[in-house]
């Protein structure tokens, strides 16, 4: 079925509402943020309307570059880990009975309803020396004495994967449900092991979904602000943490806005790059 191009104005009417929502809730706030990022910072006060690039200059230093680099790396690591864990799981889930699927999906949705605050404090308790899983490991003889497993990169990564995993599963689930089971059956009939069938049939068949999921989870993880703060050391703080510090604690809105604009542009560029590379490969 081909979509007919819109011929009259009334054909475009249904688009007006989403377009208006997009403008009001995204374009205008983003425009304000871009404008504020060029305002002049008034030290010890707020800002004055102006057009200066000092806020961007302050950001373009090796220090903020490394913080930005870490934020991007962390978000990518979370996205890759989540997809690697979620893909086999969701594939397995899609083969289960309806009832089992419903139970799992409800459980997964329940995790998604938890706020970042609750997840952060729960994991900080789980990783603590006094009440955490270290005690369990010590009791089992796997650890000599209970040790704190935080703060550290592992703790941050675990917390963020926990937060993003349900989201990943829900993104992959529809595609895996639609995947024709006869593809895998054919591979099995031709002698492929289940693992081989999964890697050489399911994964290639879902490459678009996988790429889209990676991007979505990456963007989801990029904004994380509380978990790196609760579970990590200062070197694990993301750019979002520093943006918050500037906006809320230093009342330096122009600099916070400049950093946020930069973060948005970099992530848009990365997403564009992925789409471009994917599109080229498709055309080849």
């Amino acid at each position: 079925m081909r979509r007919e191009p819109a011929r009259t104005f009334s054909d475009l009417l249904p688009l007006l509402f989403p377009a208006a929502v997009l403008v009001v809730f995204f374009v205008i706030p983003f425009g304000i943020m871009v404008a504020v990022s060029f305002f002049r910072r008034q030290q010890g006060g707020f800002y004055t309307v102006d057009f200066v690039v000092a806020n961007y200059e302050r950001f373009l230093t090796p220090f903020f570059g490394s913080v930005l680099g870490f934020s991007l790396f962390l978000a990518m690591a979370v996205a890759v880990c989540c997809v690697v864990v979620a893909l086999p799981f969701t594939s397995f889930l899609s083969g289960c009975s309806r009832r089992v699927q419903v139970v799992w999906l409800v459980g997964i949705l329940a995790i998604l309803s938890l706020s970042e605050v609750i997840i952060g404090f729960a994991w900080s308790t789980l990783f603590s020396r006094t009440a955490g899983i270290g005690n369990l490991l010590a009791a089992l003889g796997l650890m000599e004495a209970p040790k704190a497993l935080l703060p550290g990169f592992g703790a941050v990564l675990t917390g963020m994967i926990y937060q993003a995993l349900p989201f990943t599963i829900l993104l992959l689930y529809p595609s895996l449900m639609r995947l024709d089971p006869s593809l895998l059956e054919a591979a099995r009939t031709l002698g492929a092991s289940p693992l081989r069938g999964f890697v050489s049939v399911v994964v290639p068949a879902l490459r678009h979904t996988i790429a889209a999921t990676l991007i979505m989870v990456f963007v989801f993880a990029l904004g994380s602000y509380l978990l790196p703060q609760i579970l990590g050391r200062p070197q694990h703080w993301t750019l979002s943490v520093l943006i918050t510090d500037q906006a809320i604690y230093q009342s330096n809105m122009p600099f916070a806005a400049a950093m946020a604009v930069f973060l948005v542009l970099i992530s848009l560029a990365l997403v564009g790059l992925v789409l471009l590379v994917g599109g080229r490969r498709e055309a080849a």
Partner: protein
Amino acid sequence: MNKRIAGSGIGRRSFMATGLAGAGILAMPNVLKAQGRSLKVGVYGGYFKESFDKHIFPEFTKATGIAVESVAEPTGEVWLVQLAQAAKAGRAPADVSMMSQVAMLKGQAINLWTGLDRARIPNSDNLIGKFINSYPDGRVAGIGAVAWYITLVSNTKVYPKAPTSWAALWDPANRNRLGLLALVSNSFLLEVTAKTFMGGTEALNSEEGQLKAFGKLAEVKPNVRLWYRDEAQFEQALKSGEIPMGQYYHDVTGLAAADGHPVRSTFPKEGGILDSGCWALSRASKKVDEAHVFIDYMSQPSIQATMSRKVGTAPTVKRNLLDLSDDEFASVSSEIDPIVPRYDLYQARSDWLNQKWTELIVG
């Protein structure tokens, strides 16, 4: 107990709303009771607000007939941003707010506070002079509400003997055991470093001195396990002994100890960090008369004494006017000369200090 620091309460989304949507979202509608006189008062949310609602505001209404609608405010600077945005739109989410010193001064820089008439606040004469904030032209911007100390706190089970000096923070034996405040403008650790190792906070007068303090402070990094923005995060860890030492608020620690938790607050020999909150009136507020009555009422020695007993804050009025016993006074204050934050630096050099500080702890 989110008193002076908002952290966990601000999720990513609400932050976006605060930061981006601007005045429209920030300015809460000015809903007031139609009958009788009333006043909206902003106090730090959580334990602080509860204590005020329970012990202070009902008595005020009884005495003056002015109803108080208390508003839970987040930490000083966050609330300052909201008040400033709202005032631009001609609204006042609270008429009178309790503001910490750094936030007070930033508000003064943008003329956010209505000048107060001390002739209508006769009880303000009871205050110790330094607790009255004035604009450069002499108008009064704020009247001291309460004072509080940030002290050296420790878990009594992990440290049977109380530490005696801020130098304990530098002790290699305390590796990975400390919880410290995460921001230069609320931890006041530069001042602590200067008073402990450099002879006093005047050492911070020059950039050279400030860099020297940063250098000394860098040595503390391996000992710090948690740089906290949110009080609850550290308080829990301190009680359980997970993070057995650090800097924290004297009043809250005292209450935790009274509840039976194994914690103690110590005034180090170099002194505790003395910070304070002022009552300040938003320029968008029309309740100027009620605000003067309120601030005058709160400046009475008897009310200050009640706050010390019930809320655990240090009084802003002179000691000899208070009917606090020596024990009661000692539980909220100390005779040791306090470390007074260099508020002037957070005005004149705030961005530079913040940048150096961030590079120090993140780098």
